[in-house]
């Protein structure tokens, strides 16, 4: 049986940051998987292609850009939609991310709604019903 629910993967060494994503996507019909390091994420990504991957840059062991380069070498990850989310706001990092096919490059911190907007923008899922002021679009 095929699971039709999109899978969103986050690789970020901050447990709190992973929680932030998790809270943000809770109202959406998605599977959410968080990994705290590239080393933890790599075996999973060798086997699975998520619908969207959020990637931090400064992490222990391997930085997010090196990890993305390694990921792109896997045939099934060549076109995986990737968003870099980082506190490294440098033109050189933006350039490298673009060369590696990242869709977006956003700077921490992100609000719940900003994460949801990115997920909806880059997958086919719809925004949840607007039931709070925080969720309402401007």
């Amino acid at each position: 049986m095929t699971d039709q629910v999109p899978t969103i993967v986050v690789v970020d060494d901050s447990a709190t940051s992973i929680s932030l994503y998790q809270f943000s996507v809770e109202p959406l019909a998605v599977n959410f998987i968080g990994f705290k390091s590239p080393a933890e994420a790599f075996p999973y990504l060798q086997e699975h292609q998520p619908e969207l991957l959020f990637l931090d840059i400064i992490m222990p062991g391997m930085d997010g850009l090196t990890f993305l380069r390694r990921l792109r070498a896997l045939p099934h990850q060549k076109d995986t939609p990737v968003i870099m989310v980082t506190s490294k706001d440098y033109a050189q990092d933006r350039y490298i991310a673009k060369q590696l096919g990242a869709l977006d490059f956003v700077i921490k911190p992100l609000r719940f709604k900003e994460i949801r907007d990115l997920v909806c923008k880059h997958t086919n899922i719809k925004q949840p019903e607007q039931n709070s002021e925080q969720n309402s679009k401007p």
Partner: protein
Amino acid sequence: MSSDTLNYLRFWGVRGSYPAPFGSHLRVGGNTSCVELRVDNHILICDGGTGIIPLGNSLMAQKEIKEVTIILTHYHWDHISGLPFFVPAFVPGWKVNIFGPGDTMEEIERRISGQMMDPYFPVEVETWLADIHYLMANNSRLDYGPFSIDMFNVHHPGSTFGYRIQVHGKTIVYASDNELSFIDKTIEDRKGELDSQEWQLINAMQQEERSKALESIENAHVFVHDAQYTPEDYSKKRGWGHSCFIDTVNFAADAGVKQLYLFHVDPNYNDMKIEDLHRASVKIVHQRDSSMECHIAREGLIVDIDKL
């Protein structure tokens, strides 16, 4: 067993960005990043800025050691521009091991050789007649002679490492280019937009990021760190990948560092200005009631590793 050989750290290049060979700058020094660690006749060199040129010349004047390992933080010019003039690399009989950010040995070689080719330089790396080895780390760790070297990623454009080096029971941390407190300032900028739940999580994330950054340098005997800017210059150059010296001093004191060396200083700052920054740094240490020693990393300065 006692030895009469001095085990030391020596600063050969302390400037950031570009060389500053001006008369007004020479008490601190004008060469770009290069620090030598010599322990038990093993030589580990942090970065290959122009400071590696006089280091190479001094190595040619001795006969005892014929091997060095160079660890590069990254490939910006001020960290590699001395390599084309590093004489031991051109001499048969020498062994030069080189490590830096990169996925493969070929990638490290490509990044090094990129600056030694037409039309930028008259000879290519093929003229390096020494035995050149490009190294790969094993689980972010490299071992060379008495040195155990762990690398960590820092806030600077592109892939850039800091190094935590253990030798003879001492810890030396070298982070030449690192923009501290960047996330703090980004969060501060957005504080007013966040609701209470977001603020709680983002505040916790900020604490977590800071704890992790502190772990890499915790209790270092020697901490060599980016102190490029005054607060005024940092406010104009935020996001350039370098630290304000005040952030560096506070960060080092928070981490329980024993000796801090203000490094990668701005090439526009003359000796008097850097000595002013040093005085201000010592004042911060005093106000914090910290026992940390704070020094200017001056070209030629030697630190006795066994006396740390």
